[in-house]
């Protein structure tokens, strides 16, 4: 079947070729089906999972382990810790990264020492350490530094130039110590992520912006950081998800306002171990899924004007096509997770 074109030349028939077969895929599907069936069989028929205990009721008149009051409180604690620690981490991380890239040698070495120290120390150690920092000072307050020493110098022995102070053990033991330990440690990692992001932005961008008369702060805020976000967001998603899990470390501060501690408390009370662990896994899976959805939208926002994910997908399918596979049509622009 041919159609005449304007030049009078016959348009060749559209190609209807037999596509390349992928027998490997069928084998993989078969193997996976069997594995999934085995897993479902295990999960549904083995009553040691005790799904009732997890979801419905732990006993007379009680809710399931996932939904008891203390566990939900713990969940709130975990989320709050994650949010606060990540806020400190991202905020301070940006500051440290900018200091690190500054031409001022003092700023950049302070930033270097900061990342050095906080990346070296394990979070667990930090958590315990911060829980015990209260031992160092009796009171913590805002005011003139070294007020007592200055007072002694002038012969006044009880000079107190503190505007506000609080007993150190009250302030540091517990939640705040946990938030600080996690947040300060996170800032060190975020600083490196932000630095990589800033350095990934083409030099020409800040040049063009400063040639237009934008100040250094404006160049950073308006031009460099928004572009750096494309590089910063995916690893930050990683960090946030890791943080959700690391909040369980604050149990060592000790903070009990935390998901895993509360679930473990149930298992030590009731001697039910496996279902409680499963309940913990389920909660972490749920939190993580929500975060992944959030990350998807944040990434899509910051990749406006690029369509990189779309391009990357196209490149991948191009590769597949080269190797004889069918090239799937690239989806609409936007980032994947």
């Amino acid at each position, binding site marked *: 079947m041919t159609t005449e074109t304007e030049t009078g030349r016959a348009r060749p028939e559209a190609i209807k070729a037999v596509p390349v077969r992928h027998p490997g895929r069928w084998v993989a599907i078969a193997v996976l089906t069997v594995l999934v069936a085995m897993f479902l069989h295990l999960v549904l028929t083995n009553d040691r999972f005790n799904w009732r205990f997890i979801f419905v009721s732990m006993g007379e008149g009680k809710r399931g382990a996932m939904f008891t009051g203390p566990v939900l409180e713990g969940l709130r604690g975990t989320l709050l810790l994650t949010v606060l620690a990540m806020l400190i981490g991202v905020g301070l991380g940006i500051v440290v990264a900018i200091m690190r890239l500054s031409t001022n040698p003092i700023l950049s070495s302070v930033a270097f020492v900061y990342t050095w120290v906080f990346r070296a120390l394990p979070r667990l150690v930090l958590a315990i350490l911060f829980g015990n920092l209260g031992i160092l000072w009796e009171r913590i307050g805002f005011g003139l530094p070294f007020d007592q020493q200055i007072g002694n110098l002038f012969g006044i022995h009880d000079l107190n130039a503190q505007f506000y102070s609080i007993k150190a053990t009250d302030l540091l033991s517990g939640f705040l110590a946990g938030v600080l330990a996690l947040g300060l440690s996170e800032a060190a990692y975020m600083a490196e992520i932000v630095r990589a992001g800033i350095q990934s932005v*083409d030099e*020409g*961008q800040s*040049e*063009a*912006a*400063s*040639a*237009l*008369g*934008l*100040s*250094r702060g*404006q160049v950073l805020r*308006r*031009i460099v950081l*928004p*572009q750096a976000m494309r590089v910063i967001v995916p690893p930050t998603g990683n960090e946030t998800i890791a943080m959700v899990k690391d909040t369980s470390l604050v149990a060592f501060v000790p903070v009990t306002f935390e998901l895993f501690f509360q679930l473990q408390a149930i298992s030590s009370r009731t001697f039910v171990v496996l279902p409680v662990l499963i309940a913990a896994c389920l909660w972490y899976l749920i939190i993580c899924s929500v975060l992944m959805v959030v990350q998807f939208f944040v990434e899509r926002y*910051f990749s*406006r*004007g*690029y*369509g990189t994910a779309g391009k990357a997908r196209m490149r991948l399918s191009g590769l597949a096509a080269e190797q004889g596979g069918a090239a799937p049509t690239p989806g609409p622009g936007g980032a994947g997770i």
Partner: protein
Amino acid sequence: MTDEMVRAENVHKSFGSLEVLKGIDLVVRPGEVCCVLGPSGSGKSTFLRCINHLEKINAGRIFVDGDLIGYRERGGKLHELKEKEVAAQRRAIGMVFQRFNLFPHMTVLQNVMEAPCRVKRENKNEVRDRAAALLDRVGLADKIDGYPSQLSGGQQQRVAIARALAMRPKLMLFDEPTSALDPELVGEVLDVMKDLARDGMTMVVVTHEIGFAREVGDSLIFMDGGVVVEQGPPREVIGNPQQERTQAFLSKVL
């Protein structure tokens, strides 16, 4: 306005031990188009970047419209200008780069509006009208809401020109504005520049487009090895070069 838009006196610039500019003198009068020619690595870009203080010069003076660039002379001593003052000087000088350097995360219109809104804090609606008019002038009225990545090279460069013009500069610097473009796109950018020149904009243009230099340029300097080898009216320098190095260069590019 003084009668010298750009005045460079014995400008020297080194990167470490490499001396890139070895005493450049140049005067560009208001409304003039000065073309800069020269082989690769001769310091053309570096000189242009010194004019708006993207590079600090090591010796000499550069004045734009009578203002000493980057420094203040007081009691026979030079004081570095504060960052804010440098930024203020740059507002009056537009620059167009070889690789466009549009902001990829902003639409075309936002690219053009950014500096007037942020730097001069002008009224947003006025700036929008002006930006739209500028984009219309460079022939991109229909691309206003697109992103730079959706434009061809020639279109991107025209946006870059509009972006610089939005600050109402008194001087425009062009660093090889067409050399990253496919040959068929060069013309549309040069047309915009010719239009600007006709309107009386003072321009310093580093270019390899000999035709443009001959047709539009009021003066031409030929640089090599960090010095000005030859200068004069474009037709004379191009048609009848006196120096051997100029002849060698022109015979290659013509």
